């Protein structure tokens, strides 16, 4: 297997007034192609900071990120736009759907920016996220789980190399959360690489690999689906 994402020595320092917040401290992190990875940790542990840095939404203070063979840390914003557009799909906790666009239009939205005309894929994706009969509904007419499915569909439309999800079930009840994770597992079985940040341990355990982040440092990596193979320590 080849690594689709390699982060090494990632450090992220925010400044809030005079206070210096070290959100990430020398984090090394690798994701292989086709892997389903979860990152777990208490709030303030740096999960979101890590996701934003590897997703090219933020730049690290130190260290480097190689995504699909390209180093992103020193890229210009213009190239980062293209990278985000072509290789990364984002899913957020608050869904961030546009309320006056239908489910289908919300999924279609990234195509407007990538200037791709393949609208044929929209129906395929609606079907993939289990919303083929809900395409014409507005977000207000959908349940939380359905809204997150729309957001996942939107992340898939540009056929990304990797999906990054930040607390995708944070606003959902546990039954719905399990269904969303089921969907992630299905997508993963079809070959998609997934990195999911969560603080829900049960769900995190459904991933192939579960990283624990604590105080901005990698505290461990488990392979929950391989019994007997416990903690293998810091990578």
């Amino acid at each position, binding site marked *: 297997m080849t690594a689709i994402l390699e982060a090494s020595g990632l450090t992220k320092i925010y400044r*809030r007034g005079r206070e210096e917040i070290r959100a990430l401290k020398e984090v090394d992190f690798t994701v292989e192609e086709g892997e389903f990875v979860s990152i777990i940790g208490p709030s303030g542990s740096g999960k979101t900071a890590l996701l*934003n840095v590897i*997703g*090219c*939404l*933020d730049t690290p203070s130190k260290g480097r990120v190689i995504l699909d063979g390209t180093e992103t840390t020193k890229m210009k*914003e*213009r190239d980062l*736009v293209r990278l*985000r*557009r*072509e290789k*990364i*799909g*984002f899913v*957020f906790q608050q869904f*961030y759907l*546009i*309320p*006056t*666009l239908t489910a289908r*239009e919300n999924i*279609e*939205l*990234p*195509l*407007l*920016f*990538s200037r791709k005309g393949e609208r044929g894929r929209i129906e395929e994706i609606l079907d993939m996220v289990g919303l083929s009969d809900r395409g014409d509904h507005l977000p207000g007419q959908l349940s939380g789980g359905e809204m997150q499915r729309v957001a996942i569909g*939107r*992340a898939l439309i*540009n056929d990304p190399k990797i999906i990054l999800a930040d607390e995708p079930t944070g606003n959902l009840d546990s039954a719905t959360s399990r269904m969303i994770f089921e969907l992630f597992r299905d997508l993963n079985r079809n070959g998609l690489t997934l990195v999911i940040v969560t603080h829900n341990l049960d769900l995190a355990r459904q991933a192939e690999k579960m990283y624990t982040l604590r105080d901005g440092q990698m505290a461990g990596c488990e392979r929950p689906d391989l019994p007997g193979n416990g903690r293998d320590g810091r990578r």
Partner: protein
Amino acid sequence: MNFITLAVKNLMRRKGRTGLTILGVAIAISVLFSLIALNTGYEIELNREMDSFGAHILAVPKGCPYEAASLMIHGGVIPKYLNISDLEAVRSIDGVEVASPLLMYQFYKRDEATGQNNPHIVYGIKIDDMREIKPWWRVEGRFFEDDEKKVKVVGRELAEKENLTVGQVMPFGPHREDFTVVGILERTGDQDDLLHFLPLEEAQRLSNKEGKITTISVKVGDLGRVGAVAVEMEKIPDIQAVTMTQIMGTITNLTGSARSLLMTVISIAMVISAFGILNTLLMSVNERTREFGMLKAIGASGLDIGKMIMAETLIITALGGLLGTVMAVAGSTIIEGFVKGMLPYAPLGSFIHITPELVAFSLLFSVGLGIVCGIYPAFKSSQLTPMEAIRGGLE
């Protein structure tokens, strides 16, 4: 889906705010539109009124100020007179084609319907001279002869107001003599519609001004000689010669300050409305930073977001411009009434002139307003880094 549909759907998220912003633009544009329409229309109407007076030079008694002479073409009455002998002197000047004497006087008549005393204006004229000055005059019935007694011709509007018909006999003058309405002028669209026309001698008799005239309207054969003829006319002791150009200048001066005040009001209204739009846009951009972060995360560039904001702004101002133009056209008579009340000299006809050019201008202006107001918010939102945007931009 394209940027326009996305912009429309975004605007529909805050219908109230969008509606109010559009209305704000509409009011500004309708004020701009009406005032420009009024201003151009005013010039056109003033020129038309000058033309309809028919003369190039007006001979007025010495000492009569230009302002009074200006009002005269409107039917104003001045209490100074020329002698009929001056007419011959003017006629003998080289270059004078027609010299038409005119005696004006005013009387008040109680209007039964409203109980008010309304002013009526009488013109005593020499009919052949007058018809040369105003060749467009048409009459229902007939014109009188200069030596006829107890006859008159009335303007169309006056006839309608007083229910006069051709052939009607009515008491007229201080001794309530029986006058016959021999003719009613076809509508001219100017002050002539409101006047009583009498043979000059009859007017002099009724007003006890035998041998007197108020003014002489002079038509010059060669327009290049207007100035020279006026100089010659001034040599007659009683006469002051006022050319139409001078009258125009006087009226333009009289109304100039009122009109520049109006223009200042428009400009201020425009600036206020521009800042209003700018403020609304900036507010909505600030509220939506997280959404822009999401859009960047799903592949939008800064330029894409700027384009989206720009499209939203342009939709608002274009719709506002459209609505404002419609409002201005629909409400033009109200605005005209208001403005007429403010101007010291207003032509009688409607002076709102709505031209395709003006409609195009106000629409283009509203689009321009959109570009000016949208550029900063669009730039600002496009400059946000995804992280600033995601975290809400302002920390």
